């Protein structure tokens, strides 16, 4: 079964608030091997002209949504078999840096649904505006691919 594009584009996904904690940023920096102290040492970040620890380029992403209960309910609501989906693409457009102790809100919506390879692959594009108050800090795009092996038969 394929997604009904017009329903997908109208789908309301609840905004997700997220408080950026210093400890979480230090944990992330250590796990991915960031060695620049602006990512884990507040004094070093301030000396470099930042007001707090800098949030690394890929931290504010869709991954943060995945610790919510039932994180792919927005896809399931569209009738997608969640065992057939994979992460195909990810992109970020940066407007301003985020810092530790910022509170942000993820505003999410589906902006496109399309198929390739004669329907074997179906793509869903979710766009997220990561906002601090009224200011958009990052625009984030998550592209999921859903396999449809039945299209080959």
């Amino acid at each position, binding site marked *: 079964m394929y997604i009904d594009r017009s329903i997908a584009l109208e789908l309301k996904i609840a905004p997700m608030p997220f408080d950026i904690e210093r400890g979480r940023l230090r944990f992330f920096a250590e796990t991915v091997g960031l060695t620049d102290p602006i990512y884990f040492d507040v004094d070093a970040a301030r000396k470099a002209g930042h007001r707090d620890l800098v949030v690394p380029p890929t931290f504010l992403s869709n991954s*943060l949504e995945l610790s919510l209960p039932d994180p792919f309910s927005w896809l399931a609501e569209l009738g997608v078999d969640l065992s057939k989906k994979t992460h195909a693409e990810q992109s970020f*457009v940066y407007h301003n840096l985020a810092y530790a102790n910022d509170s942000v809100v993820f505003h999410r919506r589906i902006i496109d649904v399309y198929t390739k390879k004669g329907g074997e692959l179906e793509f869903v594009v979710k766009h997220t505006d990561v906002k601090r108050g009224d200011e958009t800090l990052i625009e984030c795009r998550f592209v999921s691919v859903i396999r449809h092996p039945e299209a080959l038969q």
Partner: protein
Amino acid sequence: MHQKLVKGTVLPSLQVDKITRTQLALFAGASGDHQPTHLDIDAARAKGYDDVFAHGMLSMAFLGRLLTKSFPQESIRSFHARFLARVPLHSHPLCSGRVTDVESGLARLELLMTLEDGTAVVRGEALIDTLALPPDFAVHS
């Protein structure tokens, strides 16, 4: 060697540590991506995989590390990644990047993550605002 940012400039590559189960568990906690196919061999097998495999966003975090090693983060305007193949456990990925174009103050970078056998697992692109770079900026390679 120091080099200015021009078409063809190669970034210093980044050899990341071998992918281990421990790292995937830690990244699940740090990133928020708790999907069991990255953590639990039973869940991975139930989905038809031999074993757990790395999160796409872990690969993208490594490419991000490659970028912030060379550029101040505030100069990164955009960053895109396409996940071409799974990154298996115990693989030893290499991240690389080069400038393909500099136009209107924006440098376009082509990014790549490969496995030891040369398989391209992630292809990426980033735009760097050269006007946001310090006057003495140079790529160290």
